[in-house]
């Protein structure tokens, strides 16, 4: 295939050529960045929580009366017994928070009490001796809490835990070169906290971008938050009994003590719902970007088809002449395919620059990460295929122009 005559012909269609190339360039720039955003969001949505999500549900319980710390402890223990007795319930625990709720309680972590810049900002879970077991966390080293280790903490009281179970991600961050078990750290506490156990994965309470440097870094301390305002009950059911237990739980709690509030909207959530809510905006963004990508690619394809069809119509006579002079169907076909390839390559060259330009802008103003080259390469391939696919039908039509056209007036 000779490229020279194609370029010569394109020079006579400067405007159309430039418009298609420009369209391809803009499409590449947007599609690359959109795909990158989609992929980032999907990766975020798939972050593991580390808990047995299929069999867990959470009750946000608030009291309708003012309780002292001691009264609150008694109510909580009574509630835990009530919940544990429900059919289908395997285990129950209480906590100040749970993974991927959307909001973290977190503490700065330092290795020495007077360290200035913190080593980590870890999620801070308060759990009793049932916490690890109920959530279905995988203890990979050390031991679980003993019941006698668990202290009660009233509203804004400060208890000073001496031991903690930490996530593997946190262990690696604090002690990159050695085994964390038995070592100490400080979590805005006056006294050192000893690591007694390590769990494989435990997600933070929040899923925000600010905490991305601390992803997966969580700690559990043996504390029961006896908050007079309320608490989270986390319930693990036997397989397949989640729905029934979720229906029974609030009824049983209300029957036991009416002076409580379980928000009808979000007081009772299965973990599937928790995950759905946590990543709602990420999923939305991924869907939105996908829609835009599809519309964009469809429009670009349609544009190529439209303009090439016009060119084919315009050049019927020339095609006829070429056919009459011995060009085969394939030659004509190849001519249009190559023409599109050349325009696409030109457009894509500009598009690569635009893609990084747009990314740079998004990076500076809206904190998007730097676009990896693979996305640009991927986008380039997609658009080349799209162009070739779009041009196929008009090119085929062109190849069917009979040689007799050469003798007809334009």
């Amino acid at each position, binding site marked *: 295939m000779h490229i020279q005559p194609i370029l010569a012909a394109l020079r006579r269609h400067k405007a159309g050529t430039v418009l298609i190339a420009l369209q391809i360039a803009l499409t590449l720039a947007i599609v690359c960045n959109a795909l990158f955003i989609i992929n980032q969001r999907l990766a975020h949505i798939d972050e593991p929580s580390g808990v047995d999500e299929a069999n867990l549900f959470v009750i946000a319980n608030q*009291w309708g009366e003012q309780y002292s710390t001691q009264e609150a402890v008694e109510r909580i223990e009574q509630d835990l017994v009530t919940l544990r007795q429900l059919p289908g319930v395997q285990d129950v625990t209480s906590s100040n928070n749970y993974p991927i709720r959307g909001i973290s309680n977190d503490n700065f972590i330092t290795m020495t009490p007077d360290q200035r810049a913190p080593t980590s900002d870890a999620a801070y879970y308060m759990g009793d001796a049932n916490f690890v077991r109920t959530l279905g966390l995988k203890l990979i080293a050390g031991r679980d809490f003993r019941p006698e280790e668990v202290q009660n903490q009233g509203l804004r009281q400060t208890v000073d835990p001496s031991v903690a179970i930490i996530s593997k991600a946190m262990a690696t961050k604090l002690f990159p070169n050695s085994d964390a078990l038995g070592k100490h750290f400080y979590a805005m506490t006056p006294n050192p906290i000893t690591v007694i156990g390590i769990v494989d994965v435990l997600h933070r309470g929040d899923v925000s971008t600010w905490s991305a440097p601390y992803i997966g870094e969580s700690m559990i301390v043996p504390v029961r938050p006896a908050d007079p305002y309320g608490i989270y009950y986390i319930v693990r059911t036997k397989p397949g009994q989640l729905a029934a237990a979720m229906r029974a739980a609030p009824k049983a709690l209300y029957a036991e003590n009416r002076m409580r509030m379980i928000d009808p909207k979000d007081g009772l959530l299965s973990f599937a719902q928790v995950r759905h809510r946590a990543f*709602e905006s990420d999923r939305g963004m991924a869907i*939105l970007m996908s829609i835009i990508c599809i519309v964009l690619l469809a429009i670009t394809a349609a544009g190529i088809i439209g303009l090439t069809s016009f060119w084919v119509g315009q050049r019927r006579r020339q095609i006829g002449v070429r056919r009459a002079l011995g060009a085969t169907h394939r030659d004509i076909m190849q001519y249009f395919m190559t023409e599109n390839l050349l325009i696409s390559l030109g457009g894509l060259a500009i598009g690569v620059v635009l893609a990084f330009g747009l990314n740079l802008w998004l990076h500076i103003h809206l904190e998007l990460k730097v676009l990896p080259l693979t996305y640009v390469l991927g986008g380039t391939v997609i658009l080349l295929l799209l162009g070739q696919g779009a041009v196929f039908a008009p090119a085929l039509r062109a190849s069917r122009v009979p040689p007799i056209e050469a003798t007809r007036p334009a």
Partner: protein
Amino acid sequence: MLGYYIDLAIRSLKRSPGLTLLMILTVGFGVAASMVTYSVFRAVSGDPIPWKSAQLYVPQIEMWGPKGHGGPGDNGDPPDAMDYTDAIALMRDHRARYQSAMYMITPSVVPAEAGKHPINVEGHAVFNEFFPMTDAPFKYGSGWSASDDDQRAAVAVISEKLNQKLFGGANSVGKVVDIDGKDYRVVGVLNKWEPQPRFYDVSNTGGFTTNADDVFIPFMRAIDVDMSNDGNTNCAETPAQSGFKGLQLSSCIWISYMVQLDSAAQAKAYKDYLDGYAREQQRSGRFSWPPNNRLRDLHAWLDAEHVVPSDTEVSLLVAIGLLLVCLVNTAGLLLAKFLRRSNEIGVRRAIGAPRSAIYAQFLVEAGIVGLSGGVLGLLLTGVGIHGVSWVLPKDIANLAHLDVQLLLLTLIVAVVSTMLAGIYPTYRASRVQPAWQLKSN
């Protein structure tokens, strides 16, 4: 002549229905995508109190010193809320026209009727000047007085919604409401008031919320009865003492603060006062660092707090990109369409039509494509705004709506942009040489 051009345009468009449909679809989708994302953007970047936002300011004081800095994303700004000590000191000095410290509360309200469950409500503990400062609209009664604040009176302002729930919507001023087990006298009932974002307490509410505040009680009263704060509490160090009292003695931040300053001079004076206050704290040894304060007006404050989600901005930007591609596409298609009719143009020119007539004819045609695309875009925008609640979080999606302004904007954007896209093709059409066209026939 216009009627004739419209007739010509419609005939021409009918001749190639495929190409016409393609252009209309392109314009429709492009316009709809940008209008839907724009409607969301407009909703979240709107001014919640446009008549007054220039007079409302949020002061920030550096009470943490170097200890509070150095984390990721730190830009040297002082903390975005106040600790108790400084909030109370500023309230006592009372240097602004209006001012109020406020903190978020989530007490339980027990309905008077026996057998009803307690309900959990959101609210704020505020000072009396909060109401005139925010122009909170009253249905019955009014806010409380400065002396109520001083006497730590058990009074409350409740929302219309709570009034409906507790008193069936009747004028409940003077009646008693049970908040966290204590009796409060209702002094005012607000009309429906759900400013979005909730500008008076962005640091605790994050800006956009689906819930609205149901109760307001005097700040010092709430402190007296130990009504704990909800929302964010941020500490640079662990409080030395336990409990809510310990929080009040600590440098932890949990209080929002807003002032009304009516002129630039007043704002300047207030900023000087803040710096003077910080210097005084430095002299007394409480702060071991020089003043690092901010006094932002409401716009700058909402900006600094990133109230507009960056997702919204990214979406808008990408959608505008999509519109741009649609326009380039339409320009290409119009070019093809117009040049295909070189013969017709040649004939018209040969029998005396000036270039301006060709311009008019083809711009009318582009305009008709734009208008049709706009109508389609309008439909798609309607569908899109409806579908946005399925894609975006509720607190944001609920704010997007279709109104006359957006309707007109959709049509205008569609027509103007299509005509812009049609300028070059029209120019090319007008340059057609009549002689060539006639000769080749």
